């Protein structure tokens, strides 16, 4: 493992977990109160916009593949590309400087700026990263942000709360108040239009007077030394063409080999980020540009000489490209963080994230970067301590994965970062003296108790089931809940799962196993007794058995190892990997015998179909993933292959109404599974309303944790808006979604299979 993500700026104090939790709760509460509404409105708008422009865009997937391939190659060949770029920029008459770190970059820029009074800037997250404005001010140069959102942030002395909308956390009234306070204008602007006109006026003047224009770059082309700059306001155009000196600052990862390589990105960037086909302005510049340099101090002079024509570089113009390493080259060597460098900073991962929609980037973000991918950026650039501040907020719901235009596995990056944080904390803990062999599993001995408690849910559930009802009574007892909250951080306001005294496997044995003999069966299937279905929500497992048997399947319910989902969500990667090998070993023979593997809990299926790719040999992964089905997906397949829906309908469940409110599980949505549930329920005659809320907020165990309880309720709020006013029967496939719906709406949710399975007596 390389050193990226290992060097930290600050050292952890020895505060207790409880204090930290209380701090975090307070910060989250404040962000939800102060910034939550504006953030929620804007992120949801962008997210809906992205979906609208990508849904009817058939080339979208191909473009994502191509963009991804370009980035993979470019990062692979980065050192060569830097050399090529240097030649191109110098041949064009510009200068290229590759800065090792923030200080190096700032020194070069301050030197280049020289005795300039003002530098006008267009939006650049990279200059935020290196704190360039501070360096300029220290050198007596005034930096002026010209992107309206960035300017608001500069005036308010705050930091950006979103990659593409730095002031997204502020609403119109706050901006009006800010302008009134800072400028005290005679006629204070109020409406958005007035505020924009005011800003244009003020900033227009600053741009006309400025000595140097500083921009970022969305992409840099090695073969030609060209920059792509994507904006809506037009400020980057003005900044790059008005002063005679243009400095562009960008991360070294932004290089692509050829002009033609820009195409997939230009087609994707604005669609993914803001739901626009293209932003208003895509500048493609090979600086120094040809444009004349306007001298507003000489208003009567012609803008350009009458005989001046053509498009060759204007000799009065100077161009500097500053590429910044600052940890990126080490990230390139880091197998798990490398993918972060493919990021084009569109912000779609933030927009599609339930937690981000509630708290914004001041909580879900680090020193500079915000949203899910900030985990990778901050770990690589600032170190694990900064990344650790907000790492918990990625719950692995995976809704950002299909949103990302370059197909980055953002949850995986955050899981790896979590694993590194766990290990580092453990090393520093009181238990670090224990010899490795005494550690109970693949995780370090000093692993945070809360993490171990939740991450080892399989053991806990087994114990709970063996000792139920004692365990259930105990779990409900006040002192136990208080201790759970204090020691492992499980919030008292949550109902704990009730363990069943008879597990699904035991029930299945007791009833005498399969009721459809193999000889009469159309299919032979393993119903996977995942931890929840086996020990907690046994009824949905029984319903699944009955439904599959009604459709002519020979069902087996063997005792099988857990999938490894809970440890993975706690960042216990080594444990999750062990589980993957165990489960594969236990299922391999069944798969070889052509048995299907049917999974009830969507998060377990997602493990098998997605994350196992990282743990198993490719052939093993393909075989197991190929044989595994989510239960409703499987039912759909049986129906398509001739089974009759009539075998499923006609139960006598009194709680059932024909109108359903269905919340698809986040990970199932990412695997495009919700359509099967919807179709089967509709074929069975139900009227289904589906929520478009990305995640219910519970996200496995996240919503159980004291410091996140309120946040998780807030994330689920849109579900209350969607379903609260109806008496539709609530339907959810995920256990935790069901718990959350129950908590939010105060009525129980059913698993869809329970609404389809014939009653016990009717099964053969």
């Amino acid at each position, binding site marked *: 493992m390389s050193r990226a993500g290992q060097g930290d700026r600050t050292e952890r104090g020895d505060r207790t977990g409880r204090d930290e939790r209380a701090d975090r709760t307070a910060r989250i509460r404040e962000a939800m109160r102060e910034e939550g509404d504006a953030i929620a409105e804007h992120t949801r708008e962008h997210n809906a916009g992205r979906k609208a422009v990508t849904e009817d865009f058939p080339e979208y997937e191909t473009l994502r593949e191509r963009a991804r391939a370009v980035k993979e190659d470019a990062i692979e060949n980065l050192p060569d590309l830097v050399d090529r770029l240097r030649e191109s920029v110098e041949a064009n008459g510009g200068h290229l400087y590759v800065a090792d770190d923030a200080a190096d970059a700032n020194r070069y820029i301050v030197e280049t700026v020289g005795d300039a009074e003002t530098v006008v800037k267009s939006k650049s997250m990279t200059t935020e990263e290196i704190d360039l404005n501070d360096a300029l001010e220290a050198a007596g140069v005034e930096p002026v942000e010209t992107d309206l959102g960035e300017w608001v942030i500069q005036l308010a002395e705050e930091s950006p709360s979103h990659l593409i*909308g730095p002031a997204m956390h502020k609403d119109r009234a706050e901006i009006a108040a800010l302008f009134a306070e800072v400028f005290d204008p005679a006629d204070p602007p109020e409406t958005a239009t007035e505020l924009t006109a005011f800003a244009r006026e003020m900033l227009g003047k600053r741009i006309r007077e400025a000595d140097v224009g500083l921009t970022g770059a969305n992409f840099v082309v090695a073969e030609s030394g060209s920059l792509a700059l994507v904006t809506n306001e037009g400020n980057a155009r003005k900044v790059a063409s008005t002063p005679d000196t243009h400095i562009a600052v960008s991360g070294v990862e932004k290089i692509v080999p050829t*002009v033609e390589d820009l195409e997939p990105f230009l087609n994707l960037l604005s669609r993914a980020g803001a739901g626009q086909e293209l932003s208003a302005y895509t500048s493609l510049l090979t600086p120094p540009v040809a444009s004349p340099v306007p001298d*507003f101090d000489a208003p009567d002079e012609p803008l350009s000489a009458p005989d001046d024509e053509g498009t060759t570089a204007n000799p009065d113009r100077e161009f500097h490209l500053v590429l910044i390493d600052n940890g990126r080259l080490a990230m390139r060597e880091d197998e798990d963080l490398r993918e972060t460098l493919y990021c084009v900073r569109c912000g779609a991962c933030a927009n599609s994230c339930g937690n981000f929609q509630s708290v914004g980037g001041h909580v879900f973000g680090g020193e500079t970067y915000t949203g899910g991918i900030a985990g990778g950026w901050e770990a690589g650039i600032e170190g694990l301590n900064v990344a650790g501040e907000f790492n918990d907020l990625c719950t692995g719901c995976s809704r950002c994965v299909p949103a990302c235009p370059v197909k980055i596995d953002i949850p995986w990056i955050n899981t790896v970062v979590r694993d590194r944080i766990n290990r580092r904390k453990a090393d520093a803990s009181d238990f670090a003296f224990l010899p490795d062999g005494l550690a109970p599993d693949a995780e370090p001995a000093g692993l945070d108790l809360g993490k171990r408690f939740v991450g080892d849910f399989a053991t806990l559930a087994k114990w709970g089931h063996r000792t139920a009802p004692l365990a259930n009574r105990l779990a409900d007892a006040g002192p136990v809940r208080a201790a759970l909250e204090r020691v492992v951080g499980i919030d008292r306001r949550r109902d704990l799962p009730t363990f069943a005294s008879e597990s699904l496997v035991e029930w299945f044995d007791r009833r005498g196993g399969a009721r459809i003999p193999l000889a009469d069966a159309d299919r032979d299937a393993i119903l996977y007794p995942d931890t929840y279905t086996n020990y907690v929500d046994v009824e949905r497992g029984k319903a699944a058995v009955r439904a599959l048997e009604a459709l002519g399947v020979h069902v087996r319910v063997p005792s099988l190892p857990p999938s490894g989902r809970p440890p993975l969500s706690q960042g216990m990667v080594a444990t999750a990997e062990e589980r993957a090998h165990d489960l594969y070993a236990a299922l391999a023979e069944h798969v070889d015998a052509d048995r299907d593997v049917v999974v009830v809990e969507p998060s377990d299926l997602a493990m098998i179909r997605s994350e196992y790719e990282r743990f198993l040999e490719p052939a093993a992964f393909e075989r197991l993933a190929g044989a595994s089905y989510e239960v409703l997906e499987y039912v759909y397949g049986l129906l398509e292959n001739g089974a009759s829906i009539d075998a499923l309908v006609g139960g006598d469940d009194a709680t059932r109404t024909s109108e359903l409110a269905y919340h698809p599980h986040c990970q199932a949505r990412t695997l495009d599974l919700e359509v099967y549930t919807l179709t089967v329920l509709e074929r069975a005659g139900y009227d289904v309303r589906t929520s478009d809320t990305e995640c219910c907020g519970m996200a496995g165990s996240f919503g159980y944790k004291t410091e996140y309880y309120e946040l998780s309720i807030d994330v689920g709020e849109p579900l209350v808006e969607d379903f609260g006013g109806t008496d539709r029967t609530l339907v959810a496939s995920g256990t935790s979604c069901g718990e959350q719906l129950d908590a939010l709406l105060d009525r129980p949710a059913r698993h869809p299979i329970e609404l389809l399975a014939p009653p016990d007596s009717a099964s053969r």
Partner: protein
Amino acid sequence: MSIETTFRESLSELDVAVTRTTPGSCADAIADAADGKTIGVPLPEGLTLPPDVIDRPTNGDLETAETGVTPATLGIAETGSVHLESDRAGTELVSLYPQRHVAVLRTEDLVSDVATAIDRLGPDLRAGGSGVIATGPSATADMGSLVVGAHGPGEVHVVLVEAGR
């Protein structure tokens, strides 16, 4: 659907007005599209600016003009974009500073999509050329809700010139 129809539909979605004209009537079409003090840069051969357009603007004119007239080197049908080349005459600045931009585009310079446009622009960029693919007016959502007209023009008008005279 013809490439031109697609282009016009895309422009209308962006609230960009379009006038179709012949080379001979181009100057009149520009005059109709312009508003207030108007500055311009020379158009390609065969096309002329109306007489009251300031074709050699001063720095002061750039600051005070209400309309800027420039040629566009390409139009992209699918997105309703025009490509404006940075040149010594000042196309970039003249299309950017005034509140209204009138882009003069020849129908033969229409291409269907972004990919084709990039293929066309590649050689220019490699030869040191620069420009902007402009799609509709400038806009911002940073002041609480969407506002059209931020740093760049708030109104765009395309004068589409057919081949011939």
